[in-house]
């Protein structure tokens, strides 16, 4: 109880932005028994992908905050009730908001977040094709004489290797 108290005191300060430096050590070492290694694996990945609602930027598996402990407990219980990962995430979102998902859901407002990298890969591919095609047809005469001389020297150097 003493620990919870000091943590929560720190938490209140943190909310007010008075915490001198945000660096905190999170080393919640939990002793949980799992009979099923699959459940244990799921527990680990779930607790690593849920964000502690009150810390600066820590997953609940890495946080000493009391609410993280409660959330881990809930994940553990729900897993043993046979609830799916997706439903467990929803369970948390219903109570704590989308904020607790480190892996944001694909929806209207996160469309750009997920779509942009994919679009960039496509765009990058198109760009490479366009540039190389343009360059492939570029005639050497577009070079200034001295550039051409340098170029030839460079190419010759390569050949001698």
């Amino acid at each position, binding site marked *: 109880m003493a620990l919870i108290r000091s943590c929560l005191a720190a938490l209140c300060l943190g909310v007010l932005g008075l915490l001198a430096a945000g660096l905190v050590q999170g080393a919640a070492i*939990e002793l949980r028994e799992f009979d099923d290694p699959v459940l244990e694996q799921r527990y680990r990945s779930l607790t690593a992908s849920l964000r502690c609602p009150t810390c600066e930027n820590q997953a609940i598996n890495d946080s000493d905050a009391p609410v993280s402990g409660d959330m881990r407990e809930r994940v553990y219980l729900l897993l043993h009730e046979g609830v799916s990962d997706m439903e467990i995430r929803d369970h948390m979102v219903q109570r704590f908001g989308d904020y607790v998902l480190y892996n944001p859901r694909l929806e209207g407002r996160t469309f750009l977040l997920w779509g942009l990298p994919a679009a960039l890969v496509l765009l990058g591919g198109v760009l490479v094709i366009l540039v190389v095609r343009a360059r492939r047809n570029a005639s050497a005469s577009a070079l200034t004489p001295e550039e051409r001389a340098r170029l030839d020297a460079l190419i010759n150097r390569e050949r001698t290797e």
Partner: protein
Amino acid sequence: MLTQMIPEIGHYALVIALLLAAVQAVMPLAGAATRRPLWMAYARPMAAGQLLFVAIAYACLTTSYLLDDFSVANVANNSNSMLPWYYKASAVWGNHEGSVLLWSLMLAGWGYFAARFSRELPRDMVARVIGVLGLVCVGFLAFVLITSNPFERLLPNMPQDGADLNPLLQDFGLIVHPPMLYMGYVGFSVVFAFAIAALLGGRLDAAWTRWARPWTNLAWAFLTVGIALGSWWAYYELGWGGWWFWDPVENASLLPWLTGTALIHSLAVTEKRGAFKSWTVLLAISTFSLSLLGTFLVRSGVLTSVHAFANDPSRGFFILVLLGITVGLSLLLFALRAPRVSHQVGFTWLSRDALLLINNIVLVIMTVTVLMGTVYPLLLDALDLGKISVGPPYFNALFVPLTVIMCVFMGLGPLSRWKRMNGRELWRRLGGAAVAAVLIGAVAPLLYGGEWNAWVAIGLVAALWVVLPMLRDLYDKARGAPSWLAGLRRLSLAYWGMQLGHLGVAVTIVGVAVVSNYNIERNVRMGPGDSVQVAGYTFTMTELTSRRGANFLADRAVIEVQRDGSRRSFTMNPEKRLYIARGMPMTQVALRPGFFRDLYVAMGEDLDDGSWAMRVQFKPFVRWLWLGALLMAAGGILAVADKRYRRLATARDPEARGDAKPREAAA
């Protein structure tokens, strides 16, 4: 008497440094614009003078720390009389004000060395480079003096003792990590200045890239080491064995690293082939801009991060203005002055040019992805669309495939030739490597004992695909020479630097793939006499003791570790410390490092019955992460040592310089 004045001396020195920086910014730039040699000649002495006075200010602050002058607010808030002297000296940069002063010191230092080692450059080029650096210095010194003065006093009510340095920072990591990281961030200011000078002077030729390359490599090497040190520090200090968290502050350091890597490669194309000129300039501007953006993100409090400094909106606003002026003006200049006509240098699909183009595109996509993920919560919040989090699952899901794509082309790169290359020849030299990489990579995880893991296999294939063609290339190059040794010695340092850098990437990839997937962790209750088995090691707690450190009390466990089937054993001593000044508990991890595995033991909480919750981990290949980074940095520095950069004396005329070295391998 004099010692009481030290903070004021430091403060005045800073003011003088600011004035000198202003002169350094105005006179040479004006001189270059109006072609007045006398004005341009202000550049070097001002750069030296500015460094001198920032150094005096910095020395004054450090002295205040060492003398425990708690009338200085900065010292009172971040130090304590019980702190060992080396932490007092490094506590200077363990806080916002002091670290910005360190930033400024390094900025002045890079500026000085840029001035010093540019004797062979044309006078107007030097004047512009030093002038631009002076402008950046003005911004940062003004930032220190106006919003973050580290010399502020707490008079007349000075505290008896200081509030102490955050115990998490009382570590060797604090001594080495921030300076290295800042050297990297700040170092990119030099290539930035070169880029701006080139735009101003309209001089974007091959000579320009040759001047800029060593500076880029150096800054990049520092940043690489800085990031690796940060990761290593987090690994042993935070107590649960993570080494990369995709925290906004880490991302902020990764962004300039990614564009810096792209810049190194793009500079190669611009130097050797005269292509991608505007692109190279844009990368140079972006890299330093992202360093500044990182500073903004860390110090303004717009993002929640575990590393953020205590925040103050006025500081955030100042940095944003600084960022806006520096980056906005640079990009505007870029839009106006970037070379109008692109030189149509021809190359084909199978050419080093095309591969480096792909390299740059992939690196830029990585940068945009990381940037997007980092600021997206802020964007949504600003648009009032709610609060979301973007964390490790997102970044891993995108970064891993992008890295794999990059590795595919990275294997081809070093063997390819400029302009064009015969596909059949490429296959002849690479086919074997490709088959070997896939076979070894797919089978090796089976030999590891654990179950086969697809991600490990992919990581190994990617790494081997990067390394094996390199070996093949070395073989080919050595074979052609009279003797093997002669063949290898003939190769330029730039070539070796590239090979080493690529080897480093492969080593890091192996480390990441293996430790992420084969890490074993067990949380157990342990009291004296209890033992636990993890990955073929038996950990037995033999004793629980306590000890008193300089400024902390510690519970200490003695853990005897024995490898199965081996008779030798060793002890590990994890601790739970209580730092007295702040009353803050800390976990001190016990580590047994090894080339192929680390053993990692951390103490949690004491349980009611006198035993403790302990975390025991087996972390295979984790050292490879940082070893790879060191290899990359070594590669970057090796390339700087290449002869051609020392031949700058003849560099005035690119034609006379360029092709006098038939022995030089392409880089």
